[in-house]
């Protein structure tokens, strides 16, 4: 008996319609107080770019790119920074490696400037090494929902940590 491949999230796509395989738009979601924004590209490496924000990230957005053709693995020593850039604007952070994945926590202000530039042709680089060149069409417009999710989470967090208000007329 052979122990075979571990099932992954990819298996979930049982018979996903062909149309959906060719183009998945930028999508913002909120799961358990965590804000996510991602897109899967229709290339052979199934490149996926994701942004993730939660309270633990303390004002940063974890930005990650995955490609199943990449041999990078968790714990690999990679030399950064991880940069996401166009001809005119860029954002960067200290890289971490995962299975087929590179990511970095990037200050939200830096990413906001990047988004405002309405980037279209975007490159991911690890130092001087080019990792990917992607068409970010629809990125800026979809970001609005992600930003709203982050703002809501921040407000909720502030309400939880602020001291109870004194009753103005109570005892």
């Amino acid at each position, binding site marked *: 008996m052979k122990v075979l491949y571990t099932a992954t*999230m*990819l*298996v*979930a796509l*049982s018979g996903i319609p*062909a149309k959906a395989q060719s183009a998945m738009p930028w999508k913002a*979601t909120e799961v358990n107080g965590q804000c996510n924004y*991602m897109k899967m590209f229709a290339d052979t490496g199934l490149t996926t770019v994701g942004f*993730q924000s939660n309270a633990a990230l303390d004002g940063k957005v974890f930005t990650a790119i995955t490609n199943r053709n990449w041999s990078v693995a968790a714990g690999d020593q990679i030399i950064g920074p991880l940069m996401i850039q166009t001809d005119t604007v860029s954002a960067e952070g200290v890289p971490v490696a995962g299975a087929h994945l590179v990511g970095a926590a990037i200050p939200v202000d830096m990413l906001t400037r990047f988004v405002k530039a309405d980037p279209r042709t975007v490159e991911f680089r690890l130092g001087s090494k080019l990792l*990917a060149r992607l068409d970010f069409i629809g990125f800026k417009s979809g970001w609005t929902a992600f930003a709203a999710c982050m703002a809501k989470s921040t407000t909720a967090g502030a309400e939880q940590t602020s001291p109870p208000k004194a009753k103005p007329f109570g005892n």
Partner: protein
Amino acid sequence: MFTFLLASALVASAASAQTAPTGAREWHEHDTSGQCMYGHGYADSGRTEIVLIQNRLVPPGHLAWGLKNDNWSVKAGDVIGEPVMVRSGAFSMIGNALAMDHRLFVIVPTEEVRKFAASIPSEVVVSKGNQVLTRLSVSGFSAGWAGFTRCLANADAERARQRTQEQQANPDVPVDPFAPVPTQPGA
């Protein structure tokens, strides 16, 4: 990381019901754009289905082996703590399963399923740990397999063609930027 990717995938897969086999059907193959499916529906109370899938979301060289039964209470996101085994005579495949509503999936190498087809199986027993989930007749599996493999070959060729196009469009983007740099002869 990327639990949202799974969530997106699950939403998308909900639309798959119309392409998946329903009720009693003989082994049949679907060859849609970018996706190969091979399935069988049973006329039992759970309307059991077996389906094998290869699409761009399943790793190349592998198939998603899916099993559905309407009576099963398993839900999307459930953790299946024990390996799932598909066994036929001396032949067996085992893997960790992913759960969906009334369904389990295991990723298996295509080559293993090819061997399974070549063994001309008549019955499979699917178990989770020591618990038998179902016992199904699979006579006819091998007969229809050839058509499915043609679809797989076409999909492989299409993937290779797309990769060539990608390389031509962006020749400076490496397929694997993390691959070890080959040492120069004499270096």
